[in-house]
């Protein structure tokens, strides 16, 4: 998997690379508009993380260039401007997703995984982790070939942890992922505990190893 990170803030691109190295992605960095244009014209990427506000140009023009060349690179816009207009403009131009800064790295990782899954044309939309199988198209899971009935939230939670496997995902990131803006209003993680408890119970009952670990109350980790 090849990734291009178009981001002028060096520290942020460094963090993204460090976080994503687990996934065995090949990450390249374009710190400015010109480099981004050169790289997208010369190479194909599975996913491009695109910052709109670059020192020497508008990131949206990189996206326009990609579409003009009929390239199929997945594009996630990461923007400091969380405006609806920007979001609509980006998505209309053919971006796959839009993420407002500041974001959780775990959220970014989940979005990248989703974009890559969607772009895969070999029909392989199933994640297999030992005895656990997740069908991302049907949104179902099975353990040792036997289906496990999960609620929508439990499924989202599991998929989120799996796409960030072997890394600690903070409670904040989980809360935001599961409930959107509501997490902003009530800093209350009780509902995460409830969902987590049910999820773990169901999986263990189905004969799955207990991969989900709580890390010092800081967050959770899908350890495999």
């Amino acid at each position, binding site marked *: 998997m090849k990734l291009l990170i178009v981001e002028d*803030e060096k*520290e*942020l691109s460094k*963090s*993204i690379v*460090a*976080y994503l190295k687990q996934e065995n992605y090949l990450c390249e960095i374009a710190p400015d508009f010109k480099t981004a244009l050169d790289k997208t014209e010369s190479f194909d990427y599975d996913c491009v993380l695109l910052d709109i506000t670059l020192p020497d140009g508008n990131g949206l023009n990189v996206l326009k260039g990609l579409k003009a060349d009929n390239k199929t690179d997945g594009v996630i816009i990461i923007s*400091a*401007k*969380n*405006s*609806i*207009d920007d979001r609509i403009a980006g998505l209309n131009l053919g971006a796959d997703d839009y993420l407002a*800064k*500041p*974001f*959780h*790295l*775990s959220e970014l990782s989940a979005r990248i995984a989703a974009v890559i899954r969607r772009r895969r044309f070999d029909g392989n939309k199933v994640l297999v982790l030992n005895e656990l199988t997740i069908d991302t198209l049907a949104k179902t899971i099975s353990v040792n070939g036997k289906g496990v009935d999960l609620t929508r939230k439990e499924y989202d939670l599991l998929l989120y942890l799996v796409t960030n496997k072997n*890394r*600690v995902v*903070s409670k*904040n*990131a989980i809360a935001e992922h599961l*409930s959107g803006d*509501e997490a*902003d*209003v*009530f*800093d*209350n993680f*009780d*509902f995460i505990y409830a969902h987590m408890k049910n999820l773990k119970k169901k999986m263990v009952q189905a004969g799955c190893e207990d991969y989900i670990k709580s*890390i*010092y*109350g*800081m*967050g959770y980790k899908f350890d495999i």
Partner: protein
Amino acid sequence: MKLLSKSLKGYIIYSVLILLISVPAYYYVIKSIVAEDVDEDLLSQKADMVARLGKVIDKNPSEYLEVFEPDVYIKPTSLPQRADSFYTISLYEAISKENVPHRVLESIAMLNGKPYQIQIKSSLVDNDDLIISIVTVQAILMLLIIAGLLLIARFHSKKIWKPFYATLGKLHEYKIESEKSIELEKTEIDEFADLNKTISSLTNRNHEVYLSQKEFTENASHEMQTPLAVFQSKVELLMQTTPLNGEQAELITELSEAGQRMNRLNKTLLLLSKIDNNQFNIKEAVNIDTTVQKLAEQYMNALNQKNISMHTRVAGDAVINANQTLIEILIGNLLSNAIRHNVQGGRINIVIEPNQFNISNTGNTKSLDASRLFQRFQKQTADANSVGLGLEIAKRICNLYKADITYNYADSLHCFNVRFNNS
């Protein structure tokens, strides 16, 4: 006092004063001129008479001297020679049957070498009538002139000051956020043209300052996003480091919380500046009832956790023309406040009526300070999750749609009312 009446006041006082002084002055001046005239007349009459009588007078003058009476009275005298004297007396006149003022000349003249006393009288009644007529005409003329002058002055002032009043009216209506600068009418008067020019450039400058201040808030919040993103990403990377002990984990969690709060604050500031910049300008028909239901569903978890019962009464369709997102933020803020500041097992009452809605909740049994409630950063609790801008945002949204938001505390319920005035 109006400018016009102020400037005319001086004129009026001066005119009335002159009128009051001029009429009696005129009267006395004319009267003295007429009296002088009469005296001269009497003197020349006497001189004439003495000259003519001197030739004809002989042994017994008293017999024919009487023919001159009553206007002229001549008789021999033994008095010594002296200067002529005038005086005015009132005498009864048979013809008009009333007392009439007379001017009298008394003189001693030598006729044929003998001294005679001569008295000549002249009635003043005609002269007095003349004087009164003249003064009356004069007074009327003066009045006409003054009234005319005042009217003309008033008319002119009105015309001259018209551009000034036009400018004043425009200034009254000026709003710094909506207009760039005031467009003022052209005027021929240099001072007003100068004033208009100054006002135009002043308002223009003010508007620019306002814009740059708005821009600053927006830019500052935007610029904050990047370091916040870096901070958050580093904290997340820190979570991945090994080995990690409980103490470190706790510190990292606390860092993460602080970062989260900064995010929230920054997002809220951005939202405020977006409302100010009118970036939510797409309007549609928004149904309050459906919006409340949608939000209540979103907040179901929080409601259940505190065991809060929510009662909604819809007493009429409240549909307003507004931006859906903003109305959701408005109701969301009020609703989340009602949940956050509620007690375990409390209740929330929502009443929706045409053009207004009420959200009331149980909570602290003390009324909140309504005067400080809608000010920014006025937190009435020590809750770290609230940034103290929720009600400020609610108020701004209400202002945008010319709605009134009020708070009152009654029957141990904290009640917020939002009334849309023209939707």
